[in-house]
């Protein structure tokens, strides 16, 4: 105790106290802050709030009535699903110019996202946000999903959804942490370079099968460490680094004179 008392007047005592205070505040907030409820159906109130959010955050690029400008496409008819996808992954509002909008920490809460979605949906009929049952992977057939994924998705996203390159710096992102709802919505709305996979091309059941397939990939590999599931190039690197590294190390040991 004497030691602690002695340091009471230390130069850094205020800093330590500040850090402690921040820690405690943050912890209390995390525990006690109310979780956001998701609106199930859009009320007129939601649409109005959504319109205000839109005009504050999106209209600069997408136009005051979402009709589009030179900088960004029209959002009339894109549907609630597109808005939910883009905003919940943080891609929109787009902060930085680049080959494509990147996923980043989201700017809107769940409630605000659904309000924006309600507003855009009110502008013109478009794909709706899927129900929980539609995106429930446990109800899907992963083998069928694997086949659909291989034919339609693997060429951009890699055989197990680890992501891949497109031209000119664009890329198809990894799907390892994508939520089931966003997997569904991305297929439905075709964000940016991704083509549109409407319900006639990949039916709702088939979309759920794809979700089941992707969820099955999250249990690790049967063969051990997956090494990123990137294929023969990474396997070759590991063969040199681990295999030849260990063996050359052993060879040096064998050739060295014993003490």
């Amino acid at each position: 105790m004497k030691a602690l008392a002695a340091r009471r007047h230390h130069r850094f005592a205020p800093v330590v106290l500040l850090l402690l205070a921040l820690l405690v505040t943050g912890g209390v907030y995390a525990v006690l802050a109310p979780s956001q409820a998701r609106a199930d159906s859009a009320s007129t109130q939601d649409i109005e709030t959504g319109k205000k959010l839109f005009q504050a955050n999106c209209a600069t690029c997408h136009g005051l009535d979402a009709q589009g400008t030179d900088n960004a496409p029209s959002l009339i008819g894109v549907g609630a699903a597109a808005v939910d996808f883009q905003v919940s992954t943080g891609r929109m509002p787009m902060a930085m110019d680049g080959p494509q909008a990147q996923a980043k920490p989201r700017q809107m809460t769940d409630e605000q996202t659904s309000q924006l979605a309600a507003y855009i949906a009110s502008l013109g009929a478009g794909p709706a946000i899927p129900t929980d049952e539609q995106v429930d992977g446990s109800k899907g057939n992963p083998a069928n999903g694997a086949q659909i994924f291989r034919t339609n998705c693997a060429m951009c996203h890699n055989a197990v959804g680890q992501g891949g390159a497109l031209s000119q710096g664009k890329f198809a992102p990894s799907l390892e942490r994508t939520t089931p709802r966003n997997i569904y919505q991305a297929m439905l709305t075709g964000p940016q370079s991704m083509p549109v996979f409407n319900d006639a091309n990949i039916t709702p059941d088939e979309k759920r099968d794809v979700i089941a397939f992707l969820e099955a990939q999250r249990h690790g590999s049967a063969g051990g460490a997956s090494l990123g599931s990137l294929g023969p190039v990474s396997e070759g690197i590991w063969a040199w680094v681990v295999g030849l590294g260990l063996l050359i190390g052993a060879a040096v040991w064998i050739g060295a004179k014993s003490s």
Partner: protein
Amino acid sequence: MTTSTPTRPSATEPTTPIGRTSDYLDNRTGIGHAVKEFARKVFPDHWSFLLGEIALYSFVVLLITGTFLTMFFVPSMTLSTYEGEPATMHGLLMSDAFASTLRLSFEVRGGLLMRQIHHWAALVFMASIVTHMMRVFFTGAFRRPREFNWLIGFTLLLTGLLAGFTGYSLPDDVLSGNGLAIANGVVKSIPVIGSYMSYFIFGGDFPGEQIIPRLFTLHILLIPAIILALVALHLMFVVVHKHTQYPGGGRKDGNVVGFPLFPVYTAKAGGFFFVVFAVLSLMGATMAINTVWNYGPFDPSPVSAGAQPDWYMLFLEGSLRLMPGQAEFVSWGDFTWSLNVLVPAVLPVLLLIGFALYPFLEAKVTGDNREHHVLDRPRNRPTRTGIGMAFLAFFVILAFAGSNDLIATHFHLSINSITWFFRVLIFVGPWFAFWITKRICLGLQRKDRELVLHGHETGRIVRFASGEYIEVHRPLDEQERWVRVNYTAHRPLELPAPTGPKGTKDKSYKKAKRWAKLSRFFYEDRIEPVTPAELAASHSHGEHDALPGGEDHALVAPDHSVDATEQSH
């Protein structure tokens, strides 16, 4: 005189079990000769001599694990519906080859382990061949009498490539199937006979129903047989020529200094086999490789991002990616010349073959035709080492070019920019690698020269009464010095006077002139080893000017008397 069957020369009957067994064996095989000759055969000791053994032992592991796999793999393209693990494959129509691979991985105990050890062993096999080949190249172990062994080794490199390619195509999955499609496209581009060669390989259109059984025969019978025969020849030559040795005290071209085969190398090399097998087992146990259920059974429609062959084929993949498409043209007669495919496929192979012929080129430019059993330190052959690094750079750059989409994804770059970058680098890189390697070698040689002439810096500073400070140097002992002076700095070939009637216009004289010019490129930049006279000159005072090309070196001491007393031993 009666004839009698030959009997043993009079010796006491063996009594121990070992004695009796050896007697039984020797009576029927004459194995005593071999034991006398080889049991205590001397092999020199250096870790870099074990690289070829990594390749040999990986091959043995491939044979052992491969035999296990053949007990379960079905080399057939007949289709059936698969039922079993993993869930993502259940109920799909697939070939028996793919289905048997799945069953082997998920239902046979130890099956996946054996498959993974087998595939890691294949990757390490090829990696160790390349490393071993570069060690042989950089140390000049390909010189007479080992030129044949070098060519055999080179052929082993190519057959190893084929073994790997046929092997990973066997499971009939989407990734390797696309590799076969690409191979088919390359074959079709061959002028005149390309279409027919494609039909020959696949027994018809791609993919047909014959290719997997054919690859199986190649992979488990023909190619391993060729590899085994060549490896046997390769090792036989090592025994006949005796192994090379690094320069050092007591090591000459006329002797071999090392340890006897039995027991030292039996234990070390035998133990190393177990170590190689152990490391490969560790990798097979813990690191997933070639997870074919993720790629899916072969169907010509799907393709995955990151579609590459195994690492040793990446140089071909990279060269196919870098070549611009404009090179294809149609000639008179409406024949299509697909140079955009042929050049990338053929050029690297031609360069490889050129590399394989290097020993003969070097023999010609040095005029050196005698047997060599003492190796070179790479720094003492700057041009050769530079050429080796240039070749390595070429193939490494191609391998990176073949991974351009993975580089793009990982480093958030544009794949188009990366492709252009490598298009330039493939020309600039090897030349730069040659130049900088040669400079480094020459620099190291000069450093060695300095060391011999002036000794090690001891860190002891001495101040003279006159106020001057010098650092005391400790001269090298005999062994250290010997390693640094025991080499030949070849001089460029001298051009004899023209003897033919045509004088300098004589064809053979012109040829000799060209060789002399090439020889100058190789050897006109050189650092010759220090001689005793030069060492003595460096120890006497003020005679540094006598050495041409004199750079500044710290003087050992300006005063001879300090020299003698201050040097510690």
